[in-house]
């Protein structure tokens, strides 16, 4: 069984100028990029190409594998099924049409443009996120979130959740394996009882997991207390962003805004 965090953080310790950047800069620029992508009008192919080149250059610079990033970013593709409807609902020039009894399906050029735009935007946004997570330690990201004034409680919960995520998923996987081991079935026959029964088994597993998680959190809390936890989560390194970093962030955001603006102007 692959340890999930190794799968997740495979390239996190690589060295590149991008890895060395402050997490706040990387987070803000990624956010700017994703917002800019969302703001683009349908069919702004030049702007999409510009953003794609920016992302791909950064991915290349970060040595995290261009092809791998592109492939992994297909995660959101199943959701595109929802967007297929764009093909047939936009008024525009007719490209293709079929009749099924009373219904008529007509694909228009505007529909195709809208559909492809959504697909490309989604694909690029996922790549930007993958890039961010591949070059930023999660702990750094959490610190960045705290420095960007997210409520400390929220950041602390995220931190604890990340820390125990792998323990709890290992626990869940052990439970799943145990269920498999005790679910013998004759070949060609379904294992287990009715769907309700199967759901009840899973429900009891969830309940067991809840109790184990709860008891673990009590132990964690006691361990924290015995190490002097007094209710405040403190952290070192509260350095403000340097003028260079501020400038870089602003410049990047402005550039993204300019591309969006230009695509409305000339699109």
């Amino acid at each position, binding site marked *: 069984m*692959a340890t999930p965090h190794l799968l997740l953080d495979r390239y996190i310790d690589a060295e590149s100028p991008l890895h060395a950047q402050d997490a706040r800069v990387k987070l803000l620029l990624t956010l700017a990029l994703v917002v800019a992508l969302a703001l683009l009008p349908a069919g702004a192919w030049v702007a999409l190409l510009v953003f794609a080149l920016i992302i791909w250059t950064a991915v290349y610079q970060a040595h995290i594998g261009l092809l791998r990033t592109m492939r992994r970013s297909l995660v959101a593709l199943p959701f595109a099924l929802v967007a297929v409807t764009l093909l047939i609902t936009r008024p525009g020039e007719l490209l293709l049409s079929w009749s099924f009894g009373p219904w008529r399906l007509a694909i228009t050029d505007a529909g195709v443009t809208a559909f492809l735009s959504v697909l490309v935007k989604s694909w690029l946004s996922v790549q930007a996120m993958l890039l961010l997570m591949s070059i930023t330690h999660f702990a750094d990201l959490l610190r960045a979130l705290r420095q960007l004034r997210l409520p400390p409680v929220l950041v602390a919960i995220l931190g604890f959740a990340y820390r125990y995520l792998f323990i709890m998923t290992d626990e869940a996987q052990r439970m799943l394996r145990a269920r498999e081991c005790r679910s013998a079935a004759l070949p060609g026959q379904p294992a287990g009882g009715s769907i309700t029964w199967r759901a009840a088994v899973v429900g009891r597993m969830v309940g067991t997991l809840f109790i184990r998680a709860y008891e673990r*959190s009590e132990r964690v809390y006691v361990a924290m207390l015995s190490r002097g936890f007094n209710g405040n989560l403190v952290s070192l390194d509260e350095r403000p962003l340097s003028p260079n970093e501020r400038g870089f962030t602003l410049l990047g955001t402005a550039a993204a805004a300019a591309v969006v603006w230009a695509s409305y102007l000339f699109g």
Partner: protein
Amino acid sequence: MNWQNIADGLVLGLHIPDGFLSAPVALIWWVLTIGALALAVQRVGVELNERQVPLMGVMAAFIFAGQMLNFPVLGGTSGHLLGGALAALLLGPWAGVLVMSAVVTLQALLFQDGGLLAIGANVFNMGVATVAIGYLLGMPLLRTFGGKRWGLMLIGFITAWLSVMAAALLTSLQLVFSGLSATVVFPAMIFVHAFIGIGEGLITVAALAFVVSTRPDLVSSLAGFLNKEALQQPVDKRTIGLVTFVGLGFAALAALLSPLASGDPDGLERVAENQGFLERAMDAPYTIIPDYTVPFLGETPLSTIAAGMIGLLILFALMYGLALVLRGRSSDSRTRS
């Protein structure tokens, strides 16, 4: 078990990726989510102590891992948990909101399961709305039927099913506001999630039953559930009124907005068709209001809206009547026993 499969399983429904929401829609839901989270952070700060921070973190990890526990349903599909209603019932509303928000955020950050800009909407759908349904509906229902074990189970199922439906409805609404066609999005999402919700309901009920019988102390100390005195309190008229009002408000809002937002005149008709389909299993969908317009108003958007509202009112009245009948029965059995 591999991580990609988990992500795939979850993607199917509710985690909206980036690119699908228009920027204004995404921003509106960011604002709503930030408001809800700010309130939750404040209330958790008032009601709970620092001990809750590791608890909520580990609970978020629990919900995340709990979503991996699945069971085969039909033809390679599997049922699994979303967990919002369960979190609300086990942890209480404010901690539930924070825990579910952490889960959704982590899924987006670590597994790109849901977009970055769409976190606002996704957290609201799966973190705020599911917990709100679980709690706002669960509490009054629990006060009504909760004295009995079967009452708790019934409530667990209803709130879990409705929380999934609420998340699916909100997701559809956001997609439709962003320009996708209501004609397809609403029926598809609602149809699929009506079934996913059943799995959610069954798992939630079994999990609740297990926790209640194994460690009742955990549940009562957290949310005041199964507390005999709290359960004996009658529901006051105001709570019923509030719930009714809020429900009607949402229904009316949905009816008002969906045909306008989609720019697609038959959007609501199809939703209605789908509701008919779900209720009467393949029966002819338009029997109450032909073609889902009110005759004397003619073929205008106003007519579609009016028809939608009437349809929703009928639906609501049916549900309310059912609730009254069930409550009558439960008080009967209580007096007898």
